């Protein structure tokens, strides 16, 4: 076992950086949305306070083992996804635990969190959470397809599945990014990115007023705290994959934060300006628009 133990503290360091960046990013984007509405919006550290309050609550209830494990699956899905993909290119310190698996591991590890959340919410016995899961799973299958096609075409283009090699191939100037060498794949991937970010065009899963926030309806206090932490980590972990594959990866933390923020803003902009799709509409939308672009990208790569 030539496994060097130094990777663990480095991974925890990345985790710590990303968690804080996640909380700040969420509150910062909430503040932008408020400012757009000419409101002062929440203070930047509000997310920290909410998490602390949720940890601080004295009582909690549990519907059963699977309910208890739901948030654990969810958060370990988010943390795992973050750690299986190298964050900073070139630095062995921040290549996290990506020795364990390549791009395919990241692509399929997304389901780990979804599966856990679905099982936990189903155990709560609440019909609305079951409806929320049905919508979420149906939508994610259609959303994952263009992303899988994009990944396949990128893998074909660079003839490798290892993330570090793909990032290496994109170094040297902005024109080397996959955005320019394989634009169709990037378009398909960014369309599918909207599907997985739970933002308005595709947020029928949480649908705040329709089915009270969908799957996590029955979750509270410390469970909710874990989920909020995941709400901070998971989008960033997913964006790191997009960044590494399509936008040239990050050689140091400032470019990392900038790129993550800009990619995140793409889903915010689209979210703010479009109404909510029903699930079958979103499935049809993905299959009619995103998938043909993905297929084209495979054929033309």
């Amino acid at each position, binding site marked *: 076992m030539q496994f060097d133990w130094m990777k663990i503290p480095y991974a925890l360091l990345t985790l710590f950086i990303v968690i804080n960046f996640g909380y700040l990013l969420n509150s910062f984007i909430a503040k932008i949305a408020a400012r757009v509405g000419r409101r002062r919006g929440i*203070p930047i550290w509000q997310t920290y306070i909410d998490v602390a309050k949720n940890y601080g609550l004295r009582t909690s209830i549990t519907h059963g083992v699977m309910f208890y494990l739901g948030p654990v699956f969810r958060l370990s899905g988010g943390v795992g996804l973050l750690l299986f993909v190298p964050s900073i290119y070139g630095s062995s310190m921040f290549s996290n635990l990506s020795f364990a698996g390549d791009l395919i591991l990241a692509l399929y590890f997304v389901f780990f969190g979804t599966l856990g959340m679905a099982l936990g919410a189903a155990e709560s016995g609440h019909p609305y959470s079951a409806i929320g899961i049905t919508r979420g799973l149906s939508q994610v299958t259609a959303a994952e397809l263009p992303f899988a096609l994009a990944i396949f075409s990128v893998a074909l283009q660079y003839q490798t599945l290892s993330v570090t090699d793909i990032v290496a191939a994109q170094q040297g100037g902005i024109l080397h990014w996959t955005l320019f060498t394989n634009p169709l794949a990037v378009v398909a991937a960014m369309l599918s990115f909207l599907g997985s970010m739970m933002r308005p065009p595709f947020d029928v899963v949480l649908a705040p007023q329709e089915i009270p926030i969908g799957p996590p309806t029955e979750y509270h206090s410390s469970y909710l705290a874990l989920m909020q932490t995941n709400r901070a980590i998971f989008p960033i972990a997913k964006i790191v994959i997009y960044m590494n594959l399509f936008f040239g990866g990050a050689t140091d933390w400032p470019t990392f934060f900038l790129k993550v923020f800009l990619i995140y803003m793409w889903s915010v902009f689209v979210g703010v300006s479009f109404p909510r799709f029903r699930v079958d509409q979103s499935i049809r939308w993905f299959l009619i628009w995103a998938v043909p672009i993905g297929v084209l990208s495979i054929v033309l790569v």
Partner: protein
Amino acid sequence: MKDELKKRLVKGPDGVEFEVDPLRDYYCDARPQVEPPAISKIVEDFFNWARAESLWILGFATGCGAIEMRPLMTPRFDAYRFGVQWRPTPRQSNLFIISGYLSTKTLKRVIRSYEQMQSPKYVMGLGSCTINGGMYWDSYNTIKRLDDYLPVDVYVAGCMPRPEALLAGFEELKRIIREGKGEGANKYAAEFDRYKANQKKVIHDWDMPDYNW
């Protein structure tokens, strides 16, 4: 007693007959306990500060008070600045705002929602109707004093207080919480029988378990 709550004999798939009592089988019948604050004072103060700074509201939008809460979300009053947020489910909310008169029927729903919230939880009554029945003071079916049925932390007087009054109410509540006096949940648990007796005196068709977890 409604028929879906009556005891009934049910035959299982293997032919064994057994009795199902919905109230006992479908609902957890544990009593609420008094939750002691954290051991060390510093931790409790920090948690109180966090609870004060992040008040998640469950609005029981009854009567005319609900309309007063909407401006709090607008740029003019913007309650989000104070860490206040509206949550759709009682599970995830700490502050229960009852914004108007309550009839016996709606009281039943208020009690059920209140009991589903996690402690520590606070109740804010808006308007004079929650203080003394307001203009329905002599009506046969409205609740005159909210305090008899639920431990209320803050009343905001006014026959519908304006948003500014609500913001002042929030400030008042934050002060109470920071001083550690926001122990309504424990009070409810301690005097549970008294509260339950008052409630049952008013609500005659009590077809729920005593404490709705």
